[in-house]
């Protein structure tokens, strides 16, 4: 292999990453992203484009499938590292996004391989232009998605015993079970209130010290505690990509000395595509619920 061919291979990594970084930088500087929304094409179109660009640099090497996949994996890891360094994304966020980036960079690399075999420049320019157009249209389009997650557990205690633990509770010391909490994602730790009435302030404190400021909007003793989130931390991890809007605990007396505790959360996602990120959002919200509700159960059944 001569030195120029080797450098061409390296260019496949460098140029593709630089182009994608430049597109994201231009996109951000033009304030196309409204309120920090990350559109689906940033996770779908751009990685594919990255794969296609690198395939152009590798087009004369007759690379084997295993090599192309390997190079695409390296390219994806580079992109992820650059996102950490220049885009300020958090480690857990990048772990979540990495499968998406990997498969789309691989897809792009193989689309590129087939495109550049045909040596049909008109077709190639058309495909790249089409992808770029989709990116632009997606970037300037409005994106809005809200969802609600609901969970319930049965507690062997009357609602009157459970209620005080629902409104506020002492520190959760039980070890985390959810794998994302185990690797460092902040988990709920404690809740405090300024008063036991409608309109009172409530704080949900997470393991890393982050605090969600809440305002109680429904205080129906032994039945319904609903609170709006009025301020939430904006960190590079998940909290920067999801707005928790409202939380709720409903208590239902089962008539046999047990109570069904229902936890509801409403959130707005600021990261797309929904079919991918909402799976994560639901899973994380559910595990936040369960960590709090299991703690309430433990306190109430003592």
């Amino acid at each position, binding site marked *: 292999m001569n030195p120029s061919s080797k450098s061409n291979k390296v260019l496949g990594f460098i140029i593709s990453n630089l182009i994608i970084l430049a597109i994201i930088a231009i996109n951000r500087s033009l304030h196309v992203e409204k309120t920090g929304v990350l559109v689906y094409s940033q996770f779908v179109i751009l990685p594919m484009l990255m794969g296609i660009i690198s395939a152009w640099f590798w087009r004369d090497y007759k690379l*084997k*499938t*295993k090599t192309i*996949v390997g190079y695409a994996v390296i390219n994806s890891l580079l992109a992820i590292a650059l996102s950490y360094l220049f885009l300020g994304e958090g480690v857990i966020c990048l772990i979540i996004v990495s499968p998406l980036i990997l498969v789309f960079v691989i*897809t792009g690399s193989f689309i590129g391989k087939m495109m550049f075999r045909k040596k049909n420049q008109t077709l190639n320019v058309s495909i790249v232009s089409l992808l770029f157009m989709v990116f632009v249209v997606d970037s300037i389009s409005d994106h809005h998605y809200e969802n609600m997650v609901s969970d319930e557990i049965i507690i062997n205690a009357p609602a009157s015993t459970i209620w005080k633990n629902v409104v506020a509770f002492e520190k959760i010391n039980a070890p985390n079970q959810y794998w994302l909490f185990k690797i460092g994602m902040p988990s709920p730790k404690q809740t405090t209130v300024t008063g036991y009435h409608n309109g009172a302030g409530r704080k949900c404190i997470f393991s890393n010290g982050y605090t969600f400021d809440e305002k109680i909007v429904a205080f129906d003793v032994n039945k319904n505690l609903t609170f709006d989130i009025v301020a939430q931390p904006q960190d590079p991890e998940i909290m920067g990509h999801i707005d928790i809007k409202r939380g709720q605990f409903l208590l239902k007396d089962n008539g046999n000395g047990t109570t069904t505790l229902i936890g509801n959360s409403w959130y707005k996602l600021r990261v797309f595509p929904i079919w991918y990120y909402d799976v994560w959002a639901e899973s994380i919200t559910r595990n936040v619920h369960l960590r709090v509700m299991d703690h309430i159960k433990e306190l109430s059944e003592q």
Partner: protein
Amino acid sequence: MFSFVVKKLGFIKSIPLTALIFDSGIKLWQYIFEPKKLILLDSLEDIVLSWEGVDISLHKFGGTQFNFHKNEIGHVHSNGILDILFDRETKNNLILEGKAEQHHVFEKSGWISFYIKSEADIQPAAHLLRESYLRIAQKST
């Protein structure tokens, strides 16, 4: 997994690129857990590409499609399932001779499937593709 997705979630393939992305996921899986399979599929590709007039493209449902002047000879998914369309009579004969199996989805069609699992499967797979290639080439002339 592949069978479950294809049979139960087959409708998603109508969404553009979905099948290609699924196939990329398979490639990544093979790269990590069964890299030899990718090498085997490349060797099949090399054999078929050595025939006159043959080119490859991405198959619309994921994998590599072998073409003779834009006519499909067959396609191979990244998990090693080779699919080829024959006439019903040829298909039945191939199955009777144990050279191929019913198609993994479309059993009531002329499609056959052949499962590439080891190096020993490459020549029989190439032989099936060659049969399809010769038929198509003959029709074209």
